[in-house]
């Protein structure tokens, strides 16, 4: 889409051959990078005084099932508080091995955002300290924002969970038991 903007050219010089594609559709500067060495590029983007993209706005993903190969794209939006410009970084991820490096060491805010991507798309983040589902529950089967997840899919009922790890006051439970026995229907 025409000439690259100065920032993208600058990145192309710094990482020759590592910028797979770039465009600036409607003024949104975008680069596509491979997932190998992702942390290195991101820490450069964060630390470099010229780009100064120290603010991680968002992490999300898009499923291009049957439209593109590889199937998934993890999308990062970065912002510079000082220079007031944005950059979108896209990382293609294949279906067979949906893993990318986690950005939690660079930004703490990546923690929940990556958990949400795992929850919705089933893309794993290696090195993430606590990769659990965040919006859905652990027993949920499948990843709903994948294009092959049917809209009207029903989930099986989940049996009641045990109160594992929760502090339970024994006295109060005894009291409940007492009450239950007291008011139990007589046979």
């Amino acid at each position, binding site marked *: 889409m025409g000439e690259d903007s100065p920032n993208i050219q600058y990145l192309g010089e710094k990482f020759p051959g590592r910028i797979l594609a770039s465009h600036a*559709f*409607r003024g*949104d500067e*975008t680069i596509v990078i491979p997932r190998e060495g992702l942390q290195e590029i991101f820490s450069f983007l964060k630390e470099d005084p010229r780009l100064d993209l*120290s*603010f*991680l*706005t*968002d992490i*999300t993903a*898009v*499923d291009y099932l049957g*439209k593109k190969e590889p199937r998934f794209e993890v*999308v990062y*939006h970065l912002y510079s*508080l000082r220079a*007031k410009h*944005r950059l*979108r970084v896209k990382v293609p991820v294949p279906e067979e091995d949906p893993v990318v490096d986690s950005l939690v060491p660079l*930004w*703490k*805010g990546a*923690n*929940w*955002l990556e958990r*949400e991507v795992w929850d*919705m798309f089933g893309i794993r983040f290696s090195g993430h300290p606590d990769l659990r*589902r*965040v*919006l*859905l*529950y652990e027993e949920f089967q499948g990843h*709903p*924002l994948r294009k092959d*997840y049917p*809209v009207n899919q029903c989930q099986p009922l989940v049996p009641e969970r045990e109160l594992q790890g*929760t*502090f339970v006051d024994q006295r109060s439970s005894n009291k409940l038991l007492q009450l239950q026995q007291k008011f139990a229907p007589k046979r």
Partner: protein
Amino acid sequence: MGPSHPATHGTIKFDLKLEGEKILDCDVVVGYLHRGFAKMCEQVTWTQVIPYTDRLNYVSPLINNVGYALAVEKLLGVETPARCQFIRVIMSELSRITDHLTCCGMAASELGAITVGFYLIEARELLIRIIEVVTGARLTISYTRIGGVKHDLPPDFAEQVTKAFRKSRQLLADCDRLLSRNRIFIDRMSGLGVLSQETAIAYGLTGPILRSTGVSYDVRKAEPYLVYDQLDFEIPIGTKGDNYDRFICRMLEIEQSMRIVEQALKKIPLGPVSLDDPHVVLPEKEKVYNSIEGLMHHFKIIMEGIQVPAGEVYLAVEGGNGELGFYIVSNGGGKPYRVRVRPPCFIAMSAFREMIKGSMIADIIPTFGMINMIGGECDR
């Protein structure tokens, strides 16, 4: 604590690890209001997404409407007429005021200042009535359309706003007298939920929480959308980054939003409120009934949806709680391929653990109150 607790307006659970009343660790469990916003958006046409965006942050639904409409317009590469842009600014600022009033009022009443809660809710009610006059609904308003707004403002709008603002300013002054030097209130708010500037940036926090730490970042100033660059307003910032600073930031922002509305009402030009493009905006009913082109355009938009070119855009607006971003991917055609909302409260909740660790259980209430988590937006 939770998921259903009187102080957690919105359903959320805190798994707390306690030592007496001191919080050693806190795990926040969200998602109780998850209803698959993104998945729903992929099933309907571009216009039909607008009612879903109402239900994101239902305390300030107009800002969501405007944000979504702007994002789609950016993807289409069109710009709305000047009058429409002013109307959008006015309505989003009214919405922002209701958002801040709700947040401050609820937070105050949870700390025992019920009077303040009632005063601020009364002020909010005045503004919501105006919103109702304009849009026909109180919260689920769906007022914007892609390429414009539903209809023009009523003729006596400016007078109604002036009257409501006069009353709201009195109520706010009363609340100021009740709270600003109130020992109990300050003790419960000050020095709690503290975040340093670096932590706030590392978490990607925005809105009053980031501004309370002293970072002057507001999307309206940083990347002015609509006509915010023609209006004169300031961004209040805090110094300590605690709950009290957040509260004060919000209260000061209400005044700034009122200034924006007053200026915009003076500057608003006459003219159409929607684009004159039959491929984007529905034609008038008269044309639909009396001309074949009108009927055809109407049919096309309703049945197939607006044809949006393939591409992707990210557009951020300043919501009540921070940067509300829409990342939209189009495949070409009448339906969105992917709609992602960057929810400010979801990101704020991820920093909650950091804010609350080491405090007392009772401190959860003001800290959580000042985040102003809205379940609809956090869980989508």
